[in-house]
């Protein structure tokens, strides 16, 4: 736990926003939404630790945070979905606690209204499927259940772009300088993900070659770029069928 807290980093966009809030005297707003973000991220972090993933760092942005988890790609998809959702669940639990305190007259209505406002804002923002946000992680994991991994990643990028356009056109959020900063951060993350697509896929293949995984479903394919995240493959080429491990061994040794 002590180790977790040292991994929290405040992004410079968050610091610009915090400065604005302090200069205009919104002290309680600042404390409330920062506490919501931190609880949300600790939710991801605790579930990640439960599944024995390694946490790289936790970055706090103006509308939410990002927990960077250092893990293998070929992990159980359902576990990863649980990790992606856990932030929202922890945040909601925290809000329930606040609601309970409000019902018992321990906190004022003014504070409760602020909690409600920021809880709602962050919930909606995190569900949007744009790449570093929770929504896109869930979409990517669900897609990779039914499509091959390469296609799932590409579809996630397309969905991200579509949702950014919809997000800009619909006036859900107050349009101010902080949302512009956040959209800049989001676009940067999408670009980084696009650039790393091949690298990520190669890592995926290498893990398949190096470690032993068991899957229930089988799939016969003829192209190495069409591998699924949750299936065992047989490769069909030159009229014969080869097992996944054998095929990948040939691939990596020839390349080297």
């Amino acid at each position, binding site marked *: 736990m002590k180790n977790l807290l040292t991994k929290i980093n405040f992004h410079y966009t968050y610091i610009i926003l915090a400065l604005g*809030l302090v200069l205009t005297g919104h002290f*309680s707003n600042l404390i409330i*939404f920062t506490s919501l973000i931190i609880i949300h991220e600790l939710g991801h972090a605790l579930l990640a630790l439960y599944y024995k993933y390694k946490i790289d760092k936790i970055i706090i942005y103006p*509308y939410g945070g990002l927990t960077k988890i250092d893990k293998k790609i070929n992990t159980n998809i359902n576990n990863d979905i649980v990790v992606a959702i856990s932030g929202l669940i922890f945040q909601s639990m925290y809000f329930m606690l606040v609601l309970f305190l409000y019902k018992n007259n321990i906190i004022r209505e003014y504070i409760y209204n602020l909690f409600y406002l*920021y809880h709602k804002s962050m919930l909606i923002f995190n569900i949007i499927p744009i790449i570093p946000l929770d929504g896109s992680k869930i979409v990517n994991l669900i897609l990779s259940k039914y499509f091959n991994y390469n296609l799932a990643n590409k579809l996630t990028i397309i969905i991200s772009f579509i949702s950014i356009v919809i997000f800009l056109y619909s006036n*859900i*959020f*107050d349009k*101010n300088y902080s949302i512009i900063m956040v959209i800049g951060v989001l676009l940067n993350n999408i670009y980084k993900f696009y650039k790393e697509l091949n690298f990520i896929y190669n890592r995926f293949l290498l893990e398949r070659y190096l470690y032993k995984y068991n899957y229930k479903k089988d799939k016969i394919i003829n192209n190495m770029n069409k591998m699924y995240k949750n299936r065992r493959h047989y490769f069909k080429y030159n009229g014969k069928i080869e097992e996944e491990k054998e095929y990948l061994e040939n691939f990596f040794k020839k390349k080297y």
Partner: protein
Amino acid sequence: MNEIDPSKYQNIINRSTPKPKKNYLKGLLIRTMVVIVLFLSIAIFYKSNTDFKNIIDKYIYSDSISFTKIKKFYNKYLGGVLPKIKEENTSLVFNEKINYISKEKYYDGVHLEVESNYLVPSLEEGMVVFIGYKEHYGNTIIIESLDGIYYWYGNISNTSLKLYDYIEKNTFIGETSNDLYLVFSKDDNYLDYEEFIN
């Protein structure tokens, strides 16, 4: 194949080696010393130079930071401050204006006669800058609006507001019985109440 010349890659080697840790205590001491030197030099300057003394007295001792003015600037040029979703304006609006029986001038403001246990609405959006007792007005709440006008609400009881709360227009400020005192001021001048109350 040529031999690798290490001097060629010196830059890369240097970059990858971890930097030696600085002595934390030493840095802290140096920073403290710098602050002390700055503080003493300003104090000496304050004692010796009357012009500088006047500036300090005017802007630091007598003036407080005006949050609402900065908020107005943010609203005008940066589109707002808060990272939140848009809200519909259906929150807590319970009264459009103050209903009173009679009005008369009272010290620097106005004395309104209202019903007993009257719920006072806020006349303007703003921030609570004072809650406490004022002479002639009883328990007073002062709200600074975005225009820099101070709205004083005197003789208020049963308030749920705290210092530095932001309140919207027409939201509940507090309860009063029969006598409500209002004062309007800006930059130490009292304004004519006829402009605010019809």
